[in-house]
C-alpha cells in the first residue's frame, strides 16, 4: 500500500519533536487569534511569515497550517459563549450556538463543535491524502498552455464564489497581477515597475503587501467604530451531550463534512463559504426547522464540521497545483517560494517529506485542538476581556518588527504603510483585498506560462483553445463568469451573502 507507506513517512516527519512543537505552537496561536475578534488568520500568518524563514520548510508549513485550522476552532468558542464570532467562518455558529448557551447547553454546543470539527478534519485530511497525489500526477502532464488556462480558471472561480461586485474583484486581481510583475523580468533582467527605485528591484515585498493590506488596514477599519464591549460569557456546566443530542448531530456532521470537503477544493472556497452553505442546507432539510435560530444543535454541528473540512481540503489545490484558493493559501505559497520551493505538482514527488509531513501534522494538530479547546475554555474566555484598544498597538508592533526583520530594510516598512493606506481606501470603496493577494502571488507564474505557451505555439494564440484540456479549463472559466453575471443569479447571490 503506497498510501500507508506515505502516511508512515508523513507521521515520522510530523511526530518529530521539533515538528510536534511547531504544530502545537500553530494550533495554539490559531486558537488564540480565532478567539480574539479583530485579528484574523490572514493577518496573523502574514505577521508570522518572517519568523518561519529560519525554519525548515516542513516546520514552517506545519505551523502556518496549524494557525489556519486552529482559528476555525477558536472562532466557534467565542461565537457560542458570547455571541461574538472571532472568525468570519463562525458567524453562522453564533446563531444557534449562542442560543444553546443561553438555554444552559453551552457545554453541549462546544462539545458538538469540537467533535464535529475533529471528525470533519480527520476525514478531510484523509481525502487530501487520497486525492492529492493523483491530481498532482495529472497536473504533471500539463504543458504551459494548460497551466495558463488553469490559473485563469482558478482566478476567475475565486471571484465568482466571493462576495461583492464581480467586476471590481476582477479589477483587483488584475491590479494584483501587475503588482506581482514588479521587479526584474525573469528572462531579460529588465527592471519593471520599479519607479527608478533601487529598493524595488526585487519587486514589492510580499510580506509588506500582505501585512499592509490585511494587518494595518484592518486595524484602521476596526478603529472606525469603537465601543466598549460588555461581555457576559455563558457558563459552561457539562460538556456531555445527551443521547438524543448525539443522535441529532450525526447526520449534520456527515453532511457538513461532505459539503465542506467539496467547497474547500473550489477556488474561492474554504472555511467561510462551507459553513454558510452547510447552515442553509441543514435549515432546509431539518425535521425541526422552527428550532433554527432558537438553539438547534444541527445549526452548530453542520457548519462547524463544514468549516473545518473546508479549511483542510483547501490545501489540495495549493499543494498539488500550486494554485491558491483563498488568501491564506496565497500566503502559504508565498512562504514556500521564499523557502526556495516552487509550488506545483512536483512538490508531491520531489518533496514527499514536506507533502506527507504536512498532511500527517493536520491529524496531530486536530487532536491537539480538541485537547486545547475543551479543558481550557475558561482561559480562552478570559482572553476576550482584553479590549481592542489595548491589543491593536501590539499588533502594529508585531507588523513593524516582522516586516523590518525580513530584509533589515526600512523601505519595506514604508511599503507596508503605503499598502495599509491603499487597502483601507479600497475597502472603503467595497473592493475586497483578497483577490489582489491571489493575483500578486500568481502574477509571475501566469506570465511565465503565457510566454512559454506562445513560444511553443510560435505566437499562435489559438493554442489555448486547440489543446483539449486547456480548452475545457478556459470554457469552465468563461461559463463561471457568464453564470455570475446573469442578472437572476446576481440577485440570488446577493441574498445568499446577506443571510
Amino acid at each position: 500500500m503506497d498510501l500507508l507507506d506515505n502516511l508512515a513517512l508523513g507521521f515520522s516527519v510530523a511526530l518529530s519533536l521539533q515538528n510536534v512543537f511547531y504544530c502545537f505552537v500553530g494550533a495554539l496561536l490559531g486558537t488564540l487569534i480565532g478567539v480574539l475578534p479583530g485579528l484574523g488568520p490572514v493577518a496573523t500568518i502574514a505577521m508570522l511569515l518572517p519568523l518561519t524563514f529560519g525554519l525548515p520548510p516542513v516546520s514552517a508549513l506545519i505551523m502556518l497550517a496549524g494557525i489556519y485550522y486552529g482559528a476555525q476552532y477558536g472562532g466557534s468558542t467565542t461565537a457560542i459563549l458570547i455571541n461574538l464570532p472571532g472568525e468570519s467562518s463562525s458567524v453562522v455558529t453564533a446563531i444557534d450556538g449562542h442560543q444553546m448557551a443561553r438555554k444552559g447547553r453551552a457545554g453541549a454546543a462546544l462539545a458538538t463543535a469540537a467533535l464535529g470539527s475533529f471528525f470533519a478534519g480527520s476525514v478531510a485530511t484523509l481525502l487530501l491524502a487520497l486525492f492529492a497525489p493523483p491530481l498532482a500526477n495529472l497536473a504533471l502532464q500539463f504543458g504551459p498552455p494548460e497551466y495558463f488556462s488553469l490559473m485563469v480558471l482558478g482566478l476567475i472561480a475565486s471571484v465568482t464564489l466571493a462576495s461583492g461586485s464581480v467586476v471590481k474583484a476582477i479589477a483587483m486581481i488584475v491590479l494584483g497581477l501587475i503588482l506581482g510583475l514588479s521587479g526584474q523580468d525573469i528572462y531579460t533582467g529588465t527592471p519593471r515597475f520599479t519607479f527608478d527605485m533601487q529598493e524595488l528591484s526585487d519587486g514589492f515585498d510580499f510580506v509588506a503587501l500582505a501585512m499592509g493590506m490585511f494587518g494595518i488596514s484592518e486595524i484602521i477599519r476596526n478603529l472606525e467604530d469603537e465601543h466598549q464591549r460588555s461581555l457576559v460569557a455563558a457558563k459552561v456546566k457539562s460538556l456531555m451531550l445527551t443521547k438524543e443530542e448525539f443522535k441529532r448531530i450525526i447526520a449534520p456532521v456527515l453532511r457538513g463534512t461532505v459539503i465542506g470537503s467539496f467547497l474547500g477544493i473550489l477556488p474561492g472556497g474554504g472555511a467561510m463559504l462551507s459553513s454558510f452553505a452547510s447552515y442553509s442546507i441543514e435549515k432546509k432539510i431539518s425535521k425541526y426547522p422552527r428550532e433554527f435560530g432558537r438553539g438547534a444543535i444541527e445549526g452548530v454541528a453542520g457548519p462547524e464540521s463544514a468549516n473545518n473540512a473546508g479549511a483542510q481540503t483547501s490545501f489540495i489545490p495549493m499543494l498539488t497545483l500550486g494554485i491558491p484558493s483563498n488568501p491564506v493559501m496565497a500566503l502559504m505559497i508565498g512562504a514556500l517560494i521564499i523557502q526556495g520551493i516552487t509550488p506545483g505538482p512536483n512538490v508531491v514527488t520531489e518533496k514527499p517529506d514536506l507533502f506527507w509531513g504536512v498532511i500527517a501534522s493536520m491529524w496531530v494538530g486536530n487532536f491537539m485542538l480538541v485537547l486545547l479547546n475543551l479543558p481550557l475554555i475558561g482561559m480562552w474566555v478570559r482572553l476576550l476581556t482584553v479590549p481592542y484598544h489595548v491589543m491593536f498597538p501590539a499588533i502594529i508592533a508585531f507588523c513593524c518588527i516582522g516586516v523590518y526583520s525580513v530584509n533589515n530594510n526600512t523601505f519595506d516598512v514604508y511599503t507596508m504603510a503605503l499598502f495599509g493606506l491603499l487597502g483601507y481606501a479600497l475597502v472603503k470603496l467595497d473592493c475586497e483585498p483578497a483577490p489582489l493577494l491571489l493575483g500578486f502571488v500568481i502574477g509571475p507564474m501566469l506570465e511565465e506560462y503565457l510566454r512559454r505557451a506562445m513560444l511553443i505555439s510560435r505566437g499562435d494564440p489559438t493554442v489555448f483553445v486547440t489543446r483539449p484540456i486547456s480548452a475545457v479549463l478556459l470554457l469552465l472559466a468563461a461559463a463561471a463568469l457568464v453564470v455570475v453575471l446573469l442578472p437572476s443569479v446576481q440577485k440570488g447571490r446577493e441574498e445568499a451573502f446577506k443571510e
Partner: protein
Amino acid sequence: MNIIRNPKDVLSGLLFIALGLLFGWQTQDLPMGTAVRMGPGYFPLVLSGLLGLLGLIILINGLRFPGEMPSGIAWRAVLIITGAVVFFGFGVRPLGFLPALGISVFVSALASRLFTFRTALLNTAVMVVFAWAVFIKGLGLPLPLLGPWLGGY
C-alpha cells in the same frame, strides 16, 4: 439628481483607471517584443490596459446605477496608525530598535478614542520588554537596541 449615482463605484473606477494609466505609462520604456517572443513590457501593458478597461466599466456602472456614499473615514486612525508605522521605519536605525518600537506603540495607542495615558504607557512598557525577550534574546534578531542618536553604535 446628480450624475454620480454610485460614488463608491465612480471613485473606484477612477482609481483603477488612474492605476492602469500609471502602470501603462511605466511600460513605455520596456521592450515589447512580439507575440512569439514576448518582451518584458508585453504582458504588463496588456494587464494595464485591462485594468483601465475594467475601471471604465466600473465607472460607467457607477453613473448608471444608484448606490451608497462611502461611510465616514477614520482620519484620526489613518493618520496616527500610518504615522506610527512610518515613524518606526524612520527611527529604527538612528534611534535603535527598542526606542523606535516603544514610541511607535505609544503613538499608535493614541489612535483609539478609548486612549488613556496609563494603559498606553503600560502597554508600551510590556511590548518593549516582550520584544526584547522574544526577538532579541529568544530569536536573536541582529537589531541594535540603541541607535547612534542615543549613544549606541
